[in-house]
């Protein structure tokens, strides 16, 4: 079938601002949006730029706005979206070229939550023990692939870039809820900051945007609760 695509393009070397370009591509209903972008790039216009790697929703490279919603281009099939398909870069981060945004502010926020296990006890020469129930408490947030779909769907983040954003809170949750971790105090201190978890207005956009099906809003609520308990 023939698909009409409308892509918001921006070339920093030639354009003052973004503009729409229109394409027609032949596609099977089972093809991924990413496949369509490749068809354009490989066989029509080599300058179209977007990130990609794994092509099956596990690396987090290709979050973009498709028909108004954040998703991974490699995880959505042609038959699941309405024609014409409108594609834009994710919002709230500076656009570098076409569908590519500057990810540095996003990763800076991630690093702020001390995203690593903190435990200074001698673990001995075998694994630490953890019950399956304790392990389950943070199962959901271990799935995060740092794609930024959640953070860039958040209305609070659009208006206040300094907000640490859902993805960073998800990664704080991953450690705060881990029975082996001893760094919660430091992390929750960061969450109390004006740009921390309490900026969240429970809009739920993040949860619907997450391609890994993480209950993002719930994780944020868990972290808020832990922060209050820790006070």
């Amino acid at each position, binding site marked *: 079938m023939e698909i009409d695509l409308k892509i918001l393009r921006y*070339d*920093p*070397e030639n354009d003052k601002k973004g503009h729409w370009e229109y394409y027609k591509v032949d596609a099977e209903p*089972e093809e*991924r949006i990413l496949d369509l972008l490749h068809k354009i*790039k*490989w*066989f029509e*216009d*080599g*300058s179209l*730029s977007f990130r*990609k*790697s*794994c*092509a*099956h*929703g*596990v*690396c*987090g*490279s290709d979050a973009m706005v498709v028909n108004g919603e954040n998703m991974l281009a490699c*995880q959505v*099939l042609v038959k699941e979206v309405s024609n014409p398909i409108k594609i834009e870069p994710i919002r709230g981060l500076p656009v*570098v*070229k*076409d569908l*590519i945004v500057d*990810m540095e502010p996003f*990763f800076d926020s991630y*690093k702020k939550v*001390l*995203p*690593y*296990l903190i435990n200074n006890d001698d*673990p001995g*020469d*075998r*694994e*630490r*023990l*953890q*019950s*399956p129930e304790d*392990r389950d408490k*943070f*199962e959901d947030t*271990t*799935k995060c*692939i*740092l794609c930024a779909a959640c953070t860039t769907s958040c209305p609070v983040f659009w208006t206040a870039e300094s907000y640490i954003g859902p993805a960073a809170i998800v990664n704080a949750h991953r*450690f705060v809820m*881990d029975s*082996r*971790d001893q760094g919660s105090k430091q992390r929750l201190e960061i969450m109390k900051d004006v740009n921390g978890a309490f900026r969240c207005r429970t809009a739920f956009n993040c949860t619907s945007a997450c391609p890994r*099906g993480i209950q993002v809003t719930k994780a944020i609520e868990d972290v808020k609760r832990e922060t209050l308990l820790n006070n």
Partner: protein
Amino acid sequence: MKIVKHSFDGIIVGAGGAGLRAAIEAAPTMKLAVITKLYPTRSHTGAAQGGMSAALANVEEDNWNWHAFDTVKGSDYLADQPAVDILCKEAIDAVVELEHWGLPFSRLESGKIAQRRFGGHTIKEGAAPAFRACYAADRTGHMILQTLYQKCVSMGVEFFDEFQVLDIKIEDGVCKGVVAYEIATGDLHVFEARAVTFATGGFGKIFKVSSNAHSLTGDGPGMLYQKGIPLEDMEFYQFHPTGIYRLGILLSEAARGEGGILRNKDGERFMERYAPSIKDLAPRDMVSRAIATEISAGNGAGPNNDYVYLDLTHLGEEAIMKKLPDITDFVRTYVKIEPINDPIPVQPTAHYAMGGIPTDVNGRVLSDHKGGVIEGVYAAGEAACVSVHGANRLGTNSLLDIVVFGKRAGQSMVDYVSSTKASTLNESAADDLSNKINNLMEKEHTTEFSVANIRSELQDSMEENAKIFRSKETLDNQTEILANLRERYQNVTIQDKGKVFNSELLEAIELDYLLDMADTTVASALARKESRGAHSREDFPDRDDKKFMKHSFAFKNGNSVKLEYKDVELGKYEPMERKY
């Protein structure tokens, strides 16, 4: 072109499991940087699903010697046995160390790390399938990658994200540094460094149907090959039995480890005929051949009889959702099938390179088949060939390989840097690369010589002629096709002439590496007149230990490939017939 100069003691190229593990080892004692074309967490290690083996004996009796026996047998006796001993012995500490760094393994009721069965892993040298694969649901690689990256963040390791290394400088057999392209600006960066580790991953993109990421184009092996360094055992490429039909997206062997069954169009569990004792859990080379054989015998399913089924329906919803959640999602997303109720169409998919940059057990890169080394150059992970996987890798042994030998390469960097003086390299080191780039930027674009056209012909023809079964005829044919593609590549052109995120330019350079990978694969396969592990010659169906208990070393010789051989290092296990 703007050129920026940096000075480091050590550089690691690649931030997958192997590169990050090396970085953790090397960073504390030297000025170190990790250069990576993808953000670290987007490396393909994150796609690994099923598990990482170590004889922890958490579920039942186990012993690293049994793991070594299975690895050697699985390799069809081509692995170097002293290296395999290191892999399996150090496995236990490697897993425990990852747990200490926070890796969220799935757990047993006892609180210990959970372990599951996987193809080719047995207890007591073949008595029964072993519970040896340590796992975190079916996203073990994701957890390993995240944990190692988290550790690097906590240590303050310096990263150059979205920088692509495209040249290495070696003078008189001694490493001087690398040259990288900054993807966001098009600037070139000269990194002087006396120790460089290549951990650039595999090259599954030489085939059409593949479980590999778009980024897996053999950059590390390609760059070194072009400098005269040989590539080892390139004829051994693994096809994983269960890729999603047509897409190649992997469905982990863990699916069969948990009890999944392969069936042909009649619903028959055909593996009973090919591997009566361990059936669906036979090593990958055997299962992929069995599938290919079923398909050519007309037992494939579907309108074109070209796939088989992976049946999970008897496992029950709870086990599927708890132990195999991600692959269940892949099937739902990409084939719109419900694995709880219906069998899944699968076909073998290009998956893993056993061959690559030759190294010793300390990650040092070998300059020839006689044991020479290049001072200061190291390699680890899928880009390297130690060789612990020989002619066929067992599932779960790669995640193990990347951490065990990633660490060892890092240690070698430490030793080397502490005993040598800083190297010097000036801006002119970027000249070769800058000429190459200018040349591509200036040439006028024509579709005939577009990257995508040449690349898709490469992938289609490799799929046709050099996949599971090969013969002199198909390989001769492919040699000719490759020569023609190589000629066309000399004129390759690109449309994008910009500096910012010019991924078309990078794809053009990567295509050169892909062609190198294909050339060496086909030349090595043509010369190996036997069938061993993943290399199956229809015209030489038997293993020939007299002539071929040898590793191949492929050298670049103008536009052709020159082959030399090195004896396999044997150990306690005598080669025997491989039956399961």
